[in-house]
């Protein structure tokens, strides 16, 4: 039983690990902010040609970070299961699938960075295409994240027990987070300005809030696991 709770805690912490690996990598690769969508192909190609090893490293690690994201999602689903009890597991399932979908972005988008840097002497147009692909998917795939957050929010609101798994404010917080992700879905329409992938509403706010959301949820889940573990062991001791 100990092992189960330990692994749950590990999964919850993997979200923190994700944030503390991903953000420094993004900074290392010079993606905070990313090269502007209005830059020309030659300029983009030059980005990847200089110190291409940084992009190979950053991209390769980011691809693997997806595993951290999905087990973190699983840890949350376990908590949503607690809220659901014997009711049909709709919240935990929808959160789970959305989380998996959202994390797949790390594989399918961020591989673009690796490919760009893999053979830097490719034609600049090809590199620009892959760069566009990477950023549009990485930053623009918002609906899985939004629905993931909304699932958590709805589940939290549905919690009628005397000791709720998550505090009520977490429900509203998740709704707010989902709203913040929304504008990033519009980055395909802009090559400059605050709604483009290097803009305030396309990049800074959603990515910043994404990081904050993961940190907040990780701590909430860890708190819940701690309570559940204590209850479980107390029940075990009481039964003896």
């Amino acid at each position, binding site marked *: 039983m100990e092992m189960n709770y330990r692994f749950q805690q590990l999964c919850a912490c993997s979200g923190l690990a994700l944030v503390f690996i991903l953000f420094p990598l993004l900074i290392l690769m010079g993606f905070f902010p990313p090269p502007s969508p209005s830059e020309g192909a030659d300029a983009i190609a030059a980005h990847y040609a200089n110190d291409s090893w940084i992009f190979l490293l950053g991209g390769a690690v980011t691809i693997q970070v997806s595993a951290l994201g999905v087990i973190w999602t699983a840890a949350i689903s376990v908590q949503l299961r607690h809220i659901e009890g014997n009711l049909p597991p709709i919240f935990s399932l929808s959160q789970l699938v959305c989380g998996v979908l959202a994390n797949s972005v790390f594989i399918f988008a961020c591989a673009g960075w690796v490919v760009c840097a893999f053979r830097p002497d490719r034609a600049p147009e090809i590199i620009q295409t892959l760069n566009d692909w990477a950023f549009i998917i990485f930053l623009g795939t918002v609906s899985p994240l939004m629905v993931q957050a909304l699932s958590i929010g709805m589940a939290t609101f549905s919690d009628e027990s005397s000791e709720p798994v998550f505090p*009520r*404010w977490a429900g*509203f*917080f998740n709704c707010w987070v989902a709203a*913040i992700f*929304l504008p990033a879905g519009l980055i395909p329409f802009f090559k400059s300005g605050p709604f483009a992938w290097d803009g305030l509403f396309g990049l800074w706010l959603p990515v910043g809030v994404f990081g904050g959301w993961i940190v907040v949820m990780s701590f909430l889940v860890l708190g819940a696991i701690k309570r559940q573990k204590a209850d479980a062991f107390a029940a075990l001791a009481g039964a003896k």
Partner: protein
Amino acid sequence: MNGPGVAAAPGASARRLPGEEGIWAFVLGDMLIFSLFFGTFLYYRNEQTELFLQSQLLLNKNYGAANTLLLLTSSWFVATALHMYRKQNTEWAARFLAAGFLCGLGFAVIKVTEFGEKFRAGITLNTNDFFMYYFMFTGIHFLHVLIGLGVLFFIRRTALQTPDGSGIRTLENGATFWHMVDLLWIVLFPLIYLLK
């Protein structure tokens, strides 16, 4: 302005937040984002003032003004509905919530008409920076209106299902969200349509 007709609102002696803290945190968060919108608009307006002024002439102020009055009135309906619900007058509360909903629906109809006219005239959010902000900010606000319509529908149903007054928290939560939608337009309209 302590009008004698202030219904069973929380008395001056017992300070109380309508609904629950969570919705107020959400509202504050949303208002903070919109204040970023306001600031962003003005910042870029300073860089291209002439363009913004010229483009603004293409906007239909009458639609905007009508929308303002519709939202103000809908907020009055919703606030009054809450007073009635607190006084156990559930039937009238539901009617007034429906009236507020209809006003919001009117806003939506005008908005869609307005956007439609722009599109048919070949104006889109990529036409220039002014129109980018116009469509994005009023569009995101419009999304809030649509969500708010859903909220009003839901709380009206709650009101009818809880004539004993037990649904007050839900009603207050919903009303708070709707008033926020109104309040945001109160700033957005003069900022984009009227400011010279």
